[in-house]
C-alpha cells in the first residue's frame, strides 16, 4: 500500500521457471535430478549389495527379486553398481566442469576486457580446441599423460575452458565501455578489481545456466572414454565400463548387463540437458 510500491515486484526465480516451462515439467526435471544425486550420495547407507564383490555362484543371473537388474559376468550386482556409478560419473563430471569454469571464466574476462593481442590469442586457441575431436583427443592426451582419473578430468576440463571463456567474453565486451564500468575505472580501481568486482558478476548468470549442460557433455565423454577402457579402472562402478562389459553378452540375449547402466546414463544426460534448458529460459528475455 505504500507509495513506493508502484512497479509490481519482480517474480521470483522459481515463479519465472514455472511460468515459462509449466509446473509439472520443472517439478519432474528438478525432482528426478535431485533424486539421482541424493541416491548417489546416500548409496553407502542404503541396503545395497557390495558393488565390487564378485559372486562366482551367481554369474550372469537374469533380473530377479534378489538381483533387480541381474548380475554381470563376475557375479556383481548390476543394480547396486548402477547406483554406485552415479557417484563416480557425477563426481568426475562436476570436478572437470568446475575446473573448466575456474580457468575459463577469468581467461574470458581478461581477454574480453583488455582485447587486442591477448583476446586474439585466447579466441583463436578456444576455436582450435573446440575443433579437436573429443574422444580422439582424449585418447591422445591419456596416451601421453597416463591412464588415470586425473587425465580424464583434465581432458574434459580442457574442453570446458573455451566454452566458458567464450561465454564470459561475449558478456564482457559490450559492458567494457558502459558508464558504470567507466565510473569504476575513473574512481581509480585497478583493472583486475574492475573486472572481477564489477563486470564478471554480470556474466555469472549464463555461466550458471550452462553448468548442467556442460555436466551432461562431461558425463557422456567420461562414459565414452571408459567404454574403450580409458580412465576409470575396471572394478569401479561406472556406466561406460559397465556397458562395455555387457556389450559382448548383448548378442547372446543377456541384455541386462548393458541396458540398465545405459538407461541410467541416458536419463542423467537427459535431465541435465532439460534442467539447463529451464535455467536458460528463466534468464532469457521474454519474446
Amino acid at each position, binding site marked *: 500500500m505504500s507509495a513506493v510500491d508502484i512497479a509490481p515486484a519482480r517474480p521470483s526465480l522459481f515463479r519465472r521457471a514455472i511460468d515459462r516451462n509449466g509446473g509439472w515439467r520443472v517439478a519432474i526435471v528438478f525432482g528426478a535430478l535431485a533424486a539421482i544425486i541424493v541416491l548417489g550420495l546416500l548409496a553407502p547407507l542404503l541396503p545395497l549389495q557390495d558393488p565390487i564383490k564378485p559372486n562366482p555362484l551367481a554369474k550372469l543371473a537374469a533380473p530377479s527379486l534378489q538381483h533387480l537388474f541381474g548380475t554381470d559376468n563376475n557375479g556383481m550386482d548390476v543394480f547396486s553398481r548402477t547406483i554406485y556409478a552415479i557417484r563416480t560419473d557425477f563426481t568426475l563430471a562436476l570436478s572437470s566442469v568446475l575446473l573448466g569454469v575456474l580457468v575459463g571464466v577469468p581467461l574470458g574476462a581478461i581477454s574480453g576486457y583488455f582485447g587486442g593481442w591477448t583476446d586474439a590469442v585466447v579466441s583463436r586457441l578456444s576455436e582450435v580446441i573446440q575443433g579437436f575431436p573429443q574422444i*580422439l583427443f582424449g*585418447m591422445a592426451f591419456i596416451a601421453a599423460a597416463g591412464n588415470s582419473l586425473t587425465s580424464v578430468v583434465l581432458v574434459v576440463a580442457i574442453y570446458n575452458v573455451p566454452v566458458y571463456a567464450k561465454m564470459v567474453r561475449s558478456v564482457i565486451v559490450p559492458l567494457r565501455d558502459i558508464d558504470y564500468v567507466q565510473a569504476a575505472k575513473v574512481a581509480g580501481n585497478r583493472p583486475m578489481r574492475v573486472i572481477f568486482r564489477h563486470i564478471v558478476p554480470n556474466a555469472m548468470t549464463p555461466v550458471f545456466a550452462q553448468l548442467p549442460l556442460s555436466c551432461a557433455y562431461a558425463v557422456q565423454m567420461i562414459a565414452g572414454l571408459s567404454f574403450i577402457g580409458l580412465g576409470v579402472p575396471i572394478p569401479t562402478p561406472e556406466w561406460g565400463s559397465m556397458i562395455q562389459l555387457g556389450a559382448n553378452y548383448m548378442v547372446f540375449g543377456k541384455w541386462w548387463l548393458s541396458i540398465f547402466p545405459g538407461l541410467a*546414463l541416458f536419463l542423467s544426460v537427459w535431465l541435465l540437458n532439460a534442467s539447463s534448458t529451464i535455467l536458460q529460459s528463466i534468464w532469457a528475455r521474454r519474446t
Partner: protein
Amino acid sequence: MDSTRHWIKFLAKRLGGLALSLWIVSLITFTVTRLIGNPVYLLLGPRYTEDQFQAAVQRLGLDRPIWDQYLTYLGNVLTGDLGVSRYTQTPVLEDLLHRAPATLELSTLALLLGVAWAVPAGIAAARNPRGWFAWFADAIARIGVSLPGFWLSLLLVFVFFAQLQWLPAPLGRIDEAYRDLPVVTGWMTIDTLLAGNLAAFGSALAHLVMPVVALAITTCPSIFQITRARTEEIMASDYIRSARAFGMPDRTIRRYMLLNMAAPVLTMIAMTYGFLISGTVLVEVVFTWPGLGLYAVNAMSHSDYEPVQGVVLFTTAFYLFLYMAADIVNGVIDPRARASS
C-alpha cells in the same frame, strides 16, 4: 574490379585463418606428446631395451633444444611423415589413407540421412509450432542428443540382430563371402556396384543400416533445432511480412526464406560432419567397423601411440577444413558475411 579485390581479400583471410589454426593444432599436439608425456614411452611402449631407448632419443632428437625438436616435428608432419605403427609395421599415413574411406562412407551416409530428416522436419515444425508433429520431432531431437551413440548401437544390435535376425552381425562392412571384391574407391556401396555384384551391394547396405541410423539419431538433432529456430525467426520477420503484404507469390517468399536460412544451417551441417568423422569412434568399436576410430582404439590397446596422434591430426584438419569451407559458402550466399569479415 573492386568486388574482385574484395573476394580475394575474403578468401585470403579464410585460408590464412585455416593455416593459423592448423599451426596451433601442431603446437598443441607437440606440447601434449613431448611435454606432458614421455615421448620415448610413446614411441616404444611400456617395454624397451637400453639400445632401443638410445635409438628413440636419437630419432626424436631429445638431446636437441626444444624449438629444434618442434621444427623437425612440424617438418615431418608437413611432409606426411606421421611415424610408423609399431603394431601393423606400416607408415601411419598409409594406414590412415587405407582406412579413411570406411569412416567417410559411414559418416557421410549418416549425415545425409540426418539432413534429409532434420531440415524438412525443422521447417515443418516451425510452420506449425503447436502441432503434434513439432512436438514429436522435438521429442526425437531431445532424446537423440541425450542418447550415447555407442549404447544406442548396442540396443539396435540387440533388437535387429540378436532378437529379430533382420540385420547382419556387427562384424565389419560386408559379409565374409564378398571380402575379396576389388577395391576401387574404398566405399563398399560404390565398389560393389562397380563390380556389378548386386548381392554384395545389398550386404554392404545391410551392414550400414544400424551404424548409420545410430549416428544420424545422436548427432543430427542440432541441425533440426537450428533449422526450426531460424525458420521461426524468419517467418516472424518484417521482410517476410512485407513480402506477403505486397502479394508476392509463395514461390518467391519460399526462396527468400531458404536463402536467409541457409547460412546458419550450412554451418551447422559442416560442424556436424566434422564431429561425425570423429564421433564414429565408439560406434565403429561396437560394429568392428574397420575405420579410423577402430584403428586408433586398437592401436591404443597395443600401446601403439603414433597412430592415435595421426588420427587426431587427420580428423582435426578435416574439421577445420570443413569449417572454413562452410564459411566460404556462407560468404557466397550472404554478402553480410563477406562484409563483416
